[in-house]
């Protein structure tokens, strides 16, 4: 298949002086091994190769894409882009293309993961399943690799590469499910046995269910829950959302607890990212919350131009999405997760949130359910599993001053995007359960 750098250069060359042009191209392989009822039932892999072209003809902007980047396909792409741009009105806020600038080095590529053999993923699954021989295992192990290139008519030319691997899976008893997961840029880091033991232990521990009434409970939320919270909260730090008045963020105000410090940093060795965004802007670290005080926003070129600042390298490439944080970190605390549980007199330990939906971006009220391991804590001890509960809770209120009672020292990468710890909160609003 065609080289992605050559594709980008060719597209910019074909546009020539007729327009400002930026071209991006990516190629890679995605593979995922899926299992249920303790055996592999779906095992998929595929190669991809695609190219996108955005042109601006005097501020008339259009974007087109293809996954057929042969000579004829590229020529057709250019003509389609120019024809589409001619149909457009001038965009008064067109910020122009990214100027030439080097991108920071990132650390998230492993060739062995990119080209991993299906037998390697099957081995990870084997170890996960073997960790719960009397249980039913279900989930997936994936391995992915991607190479990307960017070029524009101002001379900006960049390349990047990433890889990732994950196991996310459950063990099941007749009455309960328990989850284990690991995420890394390297498949060799993924320990199927450790993830399987975690899942099996949770499933067994939850098998003896204790019913609790909905209401407000103190909670210890494991890292995947906090990752889910940041998935919604990050929209508030998008400069576009902020500018439109839809964000909860009040810059400079002590909105959150002092224990909450959040930043975005693609250059951290623990992150999975290339060094530039979809607009060819080098990525830079943005400190979003410092000891409970929101301090900055993420920008793309459009929001930055409007705000009189520089893009932070968080554009997706379409030019209208604003700045989206994709490598979020929350500062860990000093206490082990077991200590956080031990300090709860009566409350709930939650493994995972599920099917969360936001009711309003400004209040950050979200409804969702617990899943794959919810436990009752009494006297600092886990005393049994709890059926899944529904909650309706403002994520901003959950992190307000006084509600954060402790932060764990166990921060780790979830979903390739969120590096987050366990957290203990004074109150969480559970509004329903399996009985209604």
């Amino acid at each position, binding site marked *: 298949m065609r080289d992605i750098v050559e594709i980008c250069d060719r597209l910019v060359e074909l546009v020539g002086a007729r327009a400002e042009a930026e071209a991006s191209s990516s190629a890679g392989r995605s593979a995922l091994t899926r299992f*249920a009822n303790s*055996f*592999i039932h779906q095992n998929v892999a595929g190669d991809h190769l695609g190219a996108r072209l955005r042109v601006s003809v005097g501020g008339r902007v259009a974007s087109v894409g293809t996954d*057929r980047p042969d000579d004829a396909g590229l020529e057709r792409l250019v003509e389609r882009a120019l024809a589409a741009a001619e149909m457009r009105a001038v965009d008064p806020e067109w910020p122009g293309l990214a100027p030439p600038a080097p991108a920071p080095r990132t650390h998230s590529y492993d060739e062995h993961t990119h080209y991993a053999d*299906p037998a390697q993923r099957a081995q990870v699954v084997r170890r996960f399943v073997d960790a719960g021989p009397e249980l039913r295992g279900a989930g997936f192990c994936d391995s992915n690799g991607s190479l990307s290139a960017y070029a524009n008519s101002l001379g900006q030319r960049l390349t990047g590469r990433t890889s990732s691997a994950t196991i996310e899976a459950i063990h099941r008893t007749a009455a309960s499910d328990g989850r284990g997961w690991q995420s890394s840029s390297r498949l060799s880091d993924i320990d199927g046995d450790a993830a399987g033991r975690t899942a099996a232990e949770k499933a067994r521990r939850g098998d003896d269910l204790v019913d609790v009434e909905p209401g407000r409970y103190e909670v210890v939320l494991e890292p995947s829950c906090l990752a889910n919270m940041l998935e919604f909260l990050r929209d508030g730090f998008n400069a576009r959302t902020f500018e439109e008045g839809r964000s909860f963020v009040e810059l400079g105000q002590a909105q959150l607890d002092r224990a909450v410090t959040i930043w975005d940093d693609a250059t951290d060795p623990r992150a999975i990212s290339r060094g530039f965004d979809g607009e060819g802007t080098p990525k830079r670290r943005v400190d979003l919350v410092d000891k409970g005080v929101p301090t900055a926003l993420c920008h793309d070129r459009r929001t930055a131009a409007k705000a009189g600042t520089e893009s932070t390298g968080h554009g997706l490439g379409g030019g209208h999405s604003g700045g989206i944080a994709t490598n979020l970190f929350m500062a860990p605390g000093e206490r082990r997760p077991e200590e956080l549980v031990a300090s709860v007199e009566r409350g709930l330990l939650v493994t995972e949130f*599920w099917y969360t939906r936001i009711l309003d971006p400004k209040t950050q009220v979200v409804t969702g359910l617990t899943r794959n391991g919810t436990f009752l804590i009494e006297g600092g001890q886990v005393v049994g599993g709890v059926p899944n509960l529904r909650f309706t809770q403002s994520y901003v209120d959950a992190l307000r001053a006084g509600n954060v009672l402790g932060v764990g020292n166990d921060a780790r990468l979830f979903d390739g995007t969120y590096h987050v710890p366990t957290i203990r909160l004074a109150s969480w609003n559970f*509004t329903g359960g399996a009985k209604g």
Partner: protein
Amino acid sequence: MFDLAEAAVEGALAAGATYADARAMVTSTEGLSARNGVLEGLSQNESAGVGVRALIGSSWGFFATPDPSVAAARAAGEQAAAVARASGLVAGPPMQLADVGAAQDHWDSGWDEHPFEVSLSERGDLLVNVTGTMKAVDGVGVASAYMHAWDTRKWFVSSQGHRISQHLVECGASMEATAVGETETQRRSYGGIGGIWGTRGYEMIRGADLAGNAQRVGEEAVQLLGAPECPSGTTDLILGREQLALQIHESVGHAIELDRILGWEAAFAGTSFLELGQLGTMRYGSELMNITADATLPGALGSFGYDDEGTPAQRVDIVKDGVWVGVLSGRDSAHAAGLPPGGMVRGEGWNRLPMVRMTNVGLLPGESSLEEIIAATDDGIYMETNRSWSIDDKRLNFQFGCEVGYEVKNGTLGRMLRNPTYTGITPRFWASLDMLGGPDEWVFWGTPNCGKGQPQQYGHTGHPAVPGRFRGVRVGVRGR
């Protein structure tokens, strides 16, 4: 393109697959979006490739390539078999397929006006105008609108002799206005999730009258900011037909997917509260509840000629007079359950493994009009247009938020209510259905973004629906 699919199947068989099939596909998509009276996004994409499934033992192996050469397609078939063989390290009982005839056919979805043949300027002007109208309403902070169209050609070949080509044209449009208040935002939309989407041409968007609804949508968004909050309690709930479409999708459509019932989706999408032993006897809802999965409805978003396993589109009874009688299935899941194959397996594109998908899962109409339902209600709330949706992994406990609610007192629609939500348990909720809109109210809503599977795929599903009344429902669940 048949030659690519054939080469892929041959490659898989030569590498040891006991069964193989392949889809070559060419898809063109176009999306337009406008914001605050300005055309903001214009995106066009072409995608082509071939994906091949190989069955060995207990597992499917799947490999996809964008390389449009016969050699690459054959190599993809060999890769698919190799991937399937690797599954043998964690093997289960052999997977088998329910029998279907080996069709050789062509099918076109049909359209009056192909969306790509309507000029970009005409389509763009529509979005610019409706967002301009909404934004001009005092108090509207953001007005947005978008439309999307797909032109998909498929060539399917199987090792059992299938040879089917299809051409589908789909499109849809949506618009929304957001009013920004001191402490919260309010949204009103037209179309969107569960909205104006179909396997039809641009004539559907013309008929939807976005322009005629833009002013109302903007005004209602602003009115909501000043409306009283939906009260908390238990009351009679009347759902508009668009919201009922979403209710069907979440609390019926996913629950009846046979792969979920068999545990194949347990780790992500989840399982189901339904158990196969209850099929034919379990009461799903009141006697007014009649649900079908019908892939033959002309123009509905979940319609097609053949599914992605080559099984002909069909109509299947799912709930009859309130009793659960049917499932959504494919050849593998149907064989495992000892049921006839439903022809409900589709993949998002050439690079995704097909899986059980809703077709047009909808409610057959009753006898009442919305006006009659309201007139027959002494004390209740009418809710319209979905704003948020959440349901547990067994499809039992749900909580939905709507954009707007209205008090119903003594048979009359009263004050507007903001932040209306309701929650319930699936069979209990459907058992409380006691009035249903009639044939005149029947609309084929579409959902273009149904997520399922790993890697996640987005499916196009249809949901015929009418308004309905449910007794004694918990409403007004709050988070603050």
